[in-house]
């Protein structure tokens, strides 16, 4: 069976035996095409980075907001829309991950409540980092906690920013702008 599979892949497989007829080793040769690496910008984030200081920086920014509380979702969504973002809301970590699936249209930023039941923000961020290495959205945590350990854990898990709850428009704007600018610096370096 292995031989058949390898032959389908246009490769070769053979076993070499020693003088007593026992199998000593297996060799496998497969052909691979070298992928061309395109200089693919991350969703054209460059559109969002070189804007002058105005809220047009966020216009058209695709954001997915995950928070299990209905009131918080409503308020945070409105704040983001006020900044010019296009917002999709979900109420769980699971929904968030399925919305980021490979067949869905890309989101630029994921804003994530840390304390959701079943799957918390840390877990969601960890999974996002694993599965979506190429088209990875920026991740910003939402938390009522001011503890340094919490913020540090956010960084460890690979998040790009943290916003303290209750969310204020100014705080949201500043953190979003900072996260986007940092991402831009990464791209151009």
């Amino acid at each position, binding site marked *: 069976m292995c031989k058949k599979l390898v032959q389908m892949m246009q490769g070769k497989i053979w076993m070499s035996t020693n003088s007593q007829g026992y199998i000593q080793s297996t060799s496998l040769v497969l052909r691979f095409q070298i992928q061309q690496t395109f200089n693919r910008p991350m969703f054209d984030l460059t559109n969002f980075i070189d804007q002058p200081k105005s809220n047009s920086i966020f216009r058209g920014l695709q954001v997915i907001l995950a928070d299990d509380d209905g*009131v*918080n979702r409503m*308020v*945070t969504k409105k*704040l983001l829309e*006020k900044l010019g973002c296009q917002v999709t809301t979900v109420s769980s970590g699971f929904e968030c991950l399925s919305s980021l699936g490979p067949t869905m249209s890309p989101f630029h930023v994921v804003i994530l409540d840390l304390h959701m039941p079943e799957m918390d923000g840390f877990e969601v961020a960890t999974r996002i980092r694993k599965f979506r290495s190429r088209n990875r959205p920026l991740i910003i945590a939402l938390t*009522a906690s001011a503890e340094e350990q919490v913020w540090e854990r956010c960084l460890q898990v690979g998040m790009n920013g943290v916003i303290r709850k209750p969310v*204020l428009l100014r705080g949201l704007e500043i953190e979003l702008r900072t996260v986007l600018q940092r991402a831009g610096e990464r791209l151009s370096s």
Partner: protein
Amino acid sequence: MAAVSQLQRQFIEYTTSLYNEGYLDDQFTQLQKLQDESNPEFVVEVVSLFFEDSEKLLNNLATALQQKIVDYKQVDSHVHQFKGSSSSIGAQRVTNVCVHFRNYCEEKNLDGCLRCLQQVKHEYILVRNKLETLFRLEQQIVQAGGSIPMME
């Protein structure tokens, strides 16, 4: 038929007192600023959702604390949610009770929790009545042909 200016003055006085007495804080002001032509009922919508959710939470809390063996993690989870939603809309006194409530949950102090439940229910009913009065005042102003004064 009260004159528009009289209603507006009433509105300003009432709103100011709500802030001074700590029933509302800056988060509520932010909510009002978020309301615009594209979403003229935003504040009422959010606050109505808050009322609905709060009533469910209060019921869940009562049930959880009535169990033979109280699951304090569950109780804390409800209080955490209540703390979050109340702080989002600026219902400061409710949020403050929630903070104390969470401490009692951590200590697994049933007495403390039951007292906080009563307190948080009390504060919730107070703020609900105040907000309903505020919305009624707004309606009266609009019906009398006036505009609602912007609070700074």
